[in-house]
């Protein structure tokens, strides 16, 4: 019997994976375990850290081309993104971007094996993922950013948003790509929505094979090193055409608008939907007969100055207005109890909402293309979460969120000043999609304004701790806390506004926010920087909030050769 010896990527640890992919003898590691840059936040919570924080950066050549592989260790804390690991990934991509801008082409490859944000560091993960996303969007203009999902953990949570932003995705059948992990969907939506133990169904929904067959992944390979290398080469050479999925707004929006999910859609049927050109209908989506009040809607009405929403999707409000004389587009996501997607009726960001945000941000970019002064864009952030549901995962909610991220990031790079106003909840993937790509973040100092990555109940289950233990940990580690004062300690807020009634705003409250937005607008205009680096340069960030994030970036630059 012939023996076939394969060199498995799936079965290898993250470091081995990175070295295996690159030309033998060409590669060296940046910020390896001996550099001792581990998470400062895990030990503070009595959790054993790893010397490299589970993120491996290896630079070398592949087929002679300068390549850097960033490989996530799925065995350590589920591949979760914390401050150090997140900064290692973001910082590497930012460094590659700088090199590419200088004309020195380096090809980035990300090996995904991650559950998303590391819940023990929570908001650091959120900030990092926003920075990773921003770097991918900028870098894609120079060089294909390739993502590989070999499998074991797969790619989930906020990191799936970054996977959706990659120029091309390579998967195995064993790989999985989704936003909310099956256990979290079951916890949030109930076992009748999704039974997380039904492994066969899960792979039929979000496994590599169906993602490829549905056009969401580019290459599917058998797990053997040369296959991955060939796949990468075929993407570099142009043999595999880049899909730019996050730009296909009309296609995906028509698909989700025409979808009926009253009866459960099977994975087979979903595949058919993906592969059929959706009818370009002007079908009216069901809207509530009476607008449901929400903090987001109240602030939208105030900032829009009575302008009606031009959005075709009732759960996303869009209006053009002026803010202290500056042309602005205001965008809010609001509850719609009539939403066809029953898991997105309370103001969550679901399939429709992500793509609708993308549509109206791209529209503003298109309309202002020839203008020197690009329109100010103001996402009003009052979003309880992304939508947790079976259909959401089946139909790729991660990509809807990627599309929104892409739109905001692209608008920012094109010169649109973006100022996000946090007036209510700013949670997890919803905040990443709607607000986190802004040049400046402004928040109201109110107990109704919260920033976090997961409900306490789910976070407790996933990290196998009690809610009391989580609250205790949050006292030591501000990134774990939910309140806006703790978030401020990370240094990413431009302004935290006192004395504003967030839930029942009046004209005075409006004036305070409008003036702060103007101030942020002027600050952006006075600055030629279009990336998110201001969050690392604030006084709080430098002195305490982002010390490790800054140190990681400095050390990457020092070890780069």
């Amino acid at each position, binding site marked *: 019997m012939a023996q076939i010896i394969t060199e498995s990527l799936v079965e290898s*640890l993250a*470091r*081995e994976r990175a*070295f295996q992919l690159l030309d033998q003898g060409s*590669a060296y*590691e940046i910020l*390896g*375990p*001996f550099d001792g840059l581990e998470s400062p936040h895990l*030990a503070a919570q*009595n*959790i*054993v*850290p*790893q*010397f490299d924080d*589970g993120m491996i950066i*290896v630079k070398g050549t592949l087929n002679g081309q300068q390549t850097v592989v960033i490989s996530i*260790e799925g*065995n*350590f*804390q589920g591949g979760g993104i914390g401050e150090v690991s997140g900064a290692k990934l973001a910082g590497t991509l930012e460094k590659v971007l700088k090199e590419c801008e200088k004309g020195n082409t380096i090809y980035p490859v990300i090996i995904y094996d991650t559950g998303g944000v590391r819940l023990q560091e929570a908001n650091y993960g959120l900030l990092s993922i926003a920075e990773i996303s921003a770097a991918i969007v900028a870098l894609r203009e120079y060089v294909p950013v390739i993502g590989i999902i070999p499998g074991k953990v797969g790619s989930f949570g906020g990191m799936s948003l970054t996977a959706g932003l990659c120029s091309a995705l390579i998967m195995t059948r064993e790989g999985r790509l989704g936003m909310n992990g099956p256990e979290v969907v079951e916890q949030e939506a109930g076992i009748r929505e999704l039974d997380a133990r039904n492994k066969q169904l899960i792979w039929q929904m979000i496994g590599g094979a169906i993602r490829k067959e549905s056009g969401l992944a580019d290459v599917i390979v058998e797990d053997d090193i040369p296959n991955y290398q060939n796949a990468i080469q075929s993407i570099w050479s142009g043999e595999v055409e880049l899909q730019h999925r996050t730009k296909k707004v009309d296609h995906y929006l028509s698909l989700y608008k025409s979808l009926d999910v009253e009866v459960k859609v099977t994975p087979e049927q979903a595949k058919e939907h993906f592969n059929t050109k959706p009818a370009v209908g002007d079908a009216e989506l069901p809207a509530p007969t009476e607008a449901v009040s929400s903090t987001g809607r109240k602030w939208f009405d105030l900032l829009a100055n009575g302008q009606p929403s031009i959005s075709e999707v009732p759960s996303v409000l869009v209006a053009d207005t002026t803010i202290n004389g500056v042309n602005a587009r205001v965008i809010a996501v609001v509850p719609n109890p009539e939403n066809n997607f029953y898991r997105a009726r309370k103001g969550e960001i679901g399939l429709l909402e992500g793509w609708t945000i993308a549509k109206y941000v791209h529209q503003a970019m298109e309309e202002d293309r020839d203008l020197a002064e690009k329109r100010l864009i103001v996402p009003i952030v009052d979003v309880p979460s992304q939508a947790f549901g079976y259909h959401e995962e089946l139909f790729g909610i991660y990509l809807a969120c990627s599309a929104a991220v892409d739109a905001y990031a692209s608008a920012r790079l094109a010169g649109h000043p973006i100022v996000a106003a946090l007036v209510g909840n700013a949670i997890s993937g919803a905040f990443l999609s709607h607000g986190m790509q802004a040049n400046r973040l402004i928040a109201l100092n109110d107990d109704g304004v919260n920033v976090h990555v997961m409900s306490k109940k789910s976070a407790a289950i996933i990290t196998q701790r009690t809610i009391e233990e989580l609250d205790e940990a949050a006292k030591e580690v501000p990134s774990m806390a939910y309140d806006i004062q703790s978030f401020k300690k990370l240094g990413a807020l431009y302004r935290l506004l006192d004395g504003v009634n967030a839930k029942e705003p009046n004209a005075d409250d409006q004036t305070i926010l409008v003036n702060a937005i103007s101030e942020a607008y002027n600050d952006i205009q006075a600055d030629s920087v279009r990336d998110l680096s201001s969050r690392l340069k604030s006084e709080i960030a430098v002195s305490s909030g982002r010390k490790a994030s800054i140190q990681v970036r400095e050390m990457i630059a020092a070890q780069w050769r």
Partner: protein
Amino acid sequence: MEKLIYSFPASKTIEQRAHVGVVGSGDLEILVEPTDENKTVVEIRTGITGFQDTWKKVIERFVSQNDISALIRINDFGATPGVVSIRLAQAVEVSLHGANHN
């Protein structure tokens, strides 16, 4: 998390540093770095508390078989004594004979 430190006299030097393993379920990560202090120092951080006696025995056995001047740092995520011994042997193998990516 528990921190344990052991120190033993040693006489032989090793060629190079080594890194093996991962802080994953039932596994551990070991860093070995050469020193010229004629000591084997073992620093352990473990998520499983209350097993000092077992650790002591495992490390004593390792040191009795390996005379190396080194700082050995361990991050443990619930490895059994057998796994600990195998990983230690693997780390020494690398620091004596190479074959490490670092």
